[in-house]
């Protein structure tokens, strides 16, 4: 038994070292930092000063009284709910449509929709920078000017007259384009496991396309829908990279483009560099994230999926 344990440990060691050094230790440190006054990364002086719950109290006061922080909280809520809807429903629609059509065309579409997910962040941001560009050369301006809907170019994401809705629409749209492919892939591979005879038989019995979708395809993926919803919820609450680019390049308004996760990042690294405060907000995110993560494992009935190892000697 001891020899077996040592052998497994030997195989697992590289992974264990990295997990401890880059997940567990940083997490403990972040929680620790949330009780310190750490600013400007003065790690040597400030990491052992304690301010108790001050950062959390500040967070509470900000949430109650600060108008900018109110915008952040509103944006977080709107962003998460709307993008989640797009990702799940859009992913389901894409999966159904690509499942029904000819395989070669379907492959092309699925790859096309996977492209935003695989595109480097800076390039993807650049695409939308050109698209929403405030000058007459911007794609959206160019179209609307040509069609005579507007007389002069608009700064879509930052014009105060259109805030907050325009900024929200942009962040939801841009993130939705990345997010839908997740649901699409999961649902599509579930459809692929359906015996074709089942659908052909339904068609021979005279079922319309809509009836096939409603009575066969959707019921088959109902657990997948729950799983994708919870998993995407988790990922949307914690993701910040695409929003960072949009805000940093002024494609959208600073506060109506910032969610709580991005707020933590900017507070720690760019704006005020108040890491103690940022860490307190991060701890809140971790708590929400852990609850959702554990929920997902439950939904996936995960323990049953882990098959026993073969070849254990």
């Amino acid at each position: 038994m001891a020899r077996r344990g040592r052998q497994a440990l030997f195989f697992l060691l590289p992974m264990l070292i990295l997990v401890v050094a880059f997940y567990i230790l940083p997490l403990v440190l972040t929680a620790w930092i949330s009780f310190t006054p750490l600013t400007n990364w003065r790690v040597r002086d400030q990491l052992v000063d304690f301010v108790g719950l001050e950062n959390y109290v500040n967070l509470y006061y900000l949430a109650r009284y600060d108008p900018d922080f109110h915008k952040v909280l509103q944006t977080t809520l709107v962003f998460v709910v709307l993008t989640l809807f797009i990702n799940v429903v859009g992913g389901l629609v894409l999966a159904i449509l690509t499942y029904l059509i000819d395989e070669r065309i379907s492959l092309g579409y699925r790859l096309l929709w996977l492209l935003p997910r695989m595109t480097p962040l800076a390039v993807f941001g650049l695409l939308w920078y050109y698209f929403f560009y405030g000058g007459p050369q911007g794609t959206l301006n160019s179209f609307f000017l040509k069609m005579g809907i507007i007389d002069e170019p608009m700064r879509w994401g930052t014009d105060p007259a259109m805030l907050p809705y325009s900024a929200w629409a942009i962040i939801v749209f841009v993130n939705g384009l990345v997010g839908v492919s997740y649901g699409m892939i999961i649902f599509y591979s579930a459809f692929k496991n359906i015996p074709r005879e089942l659908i052909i038989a339904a068609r021979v019995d005279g079922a319309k396309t809509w009836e096939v979708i409603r009575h066969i395809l959707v019921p088959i993926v109902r657990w997948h829908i729950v799983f994708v919803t919870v998993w995407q919820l988790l990922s949307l609450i914690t993701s910040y990279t695409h929003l960072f680019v949009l805000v940093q390049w002024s494609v959208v308004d600073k506060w109506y483009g910032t969610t709580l996760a991005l707020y933590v990042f900017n507070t720690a690294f760019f704006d005020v560099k108040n890491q103690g405060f940022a860490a307190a907000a991060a701890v809140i995110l971790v708590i929400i994230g852990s609850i959702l993560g554990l929920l997902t494992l439950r939904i996936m009935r995960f323990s049953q999926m882990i098959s026993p190892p073969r070849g254990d000697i």
Partner: protein
Amino acid sequence: MGEGIGEGGPLVRGTMGIVIILALLLASLPIIMTYSTLVMTSFANTIVSSPWVKFRFTLENWRLFLEGKLAPTAGIVYTPEDILRFILNTGIVAGGVTLVVLAASVTSAYAFSRMNFFMRSGMMKLLILLHAFPGVALIVGVYAIYVFLNNYIPRDYSIYYSFIFVIIARASLEIPMAIWILKGFFDRVPWELEWATIVDGGSRLTALRTAVLPLVKPGIAAVAIFAFLAGWEDLIYVLVFLPPQEKTLATYIESQLGSGSLETTYLPVVAAAGTLYLIPTIIFFVVTQRLLLETMSGGLKG
């Protein structure tokens, strides 16, 4: 009606099939348009944002970009940047991430597939949780470690330290998923093959190396590609950990569009940078189409 639905054919034919294909095309227009704007602009003298923009074909942007003359409108008062260095830096980070991910995930995935040990299923659940972990909470702690250790690094080695740290830190984010993907591939290899090696007196490590690894090459390739692309595309870690003069393509583009830089930014040259930056992604995409889609669904499902 369902006439003519045979094995392998589409499930919907005729008018309905065409309607669906056109609807998908319409929905895909924003994707198609934005990517073609980027690529066309890199070969044009202006932003080719819509079909009716009149532009002149030119390679000038690419010349300016590769010569490092990134802000031609700034006139003579500025020094060209070393673009090859930026490309090299991007490659170093991507290559480094690939190596670290492979080194840390192959043996672990093998152990999860073949051995029983204390907390095995607990650790596998933990990996899934880590994959979804709030990255923003981690990066604060990881940067604190970086700053703390930096005090003990001699100034001359500081730049190597930054690169090594950013590579390992970025690679760590990819490890949970890499292990899950690889474990799936290991699970499909028949156990009898290793058993023969072990009966002949070989160790587990020999069995892994000689009997199993050759059979999981597609899995290793998939993990390597995902890891490479993750390192290649990274903006946040490079921006946070590397000193400002050590740019990658990502941080170069960021510096051109970020606040305070717009006065001298010439967007067609940035488009050339973006197009170049996109090329490896597109190549992997075209070469590995099916492997990519299958690994993603397999990996995502666990």
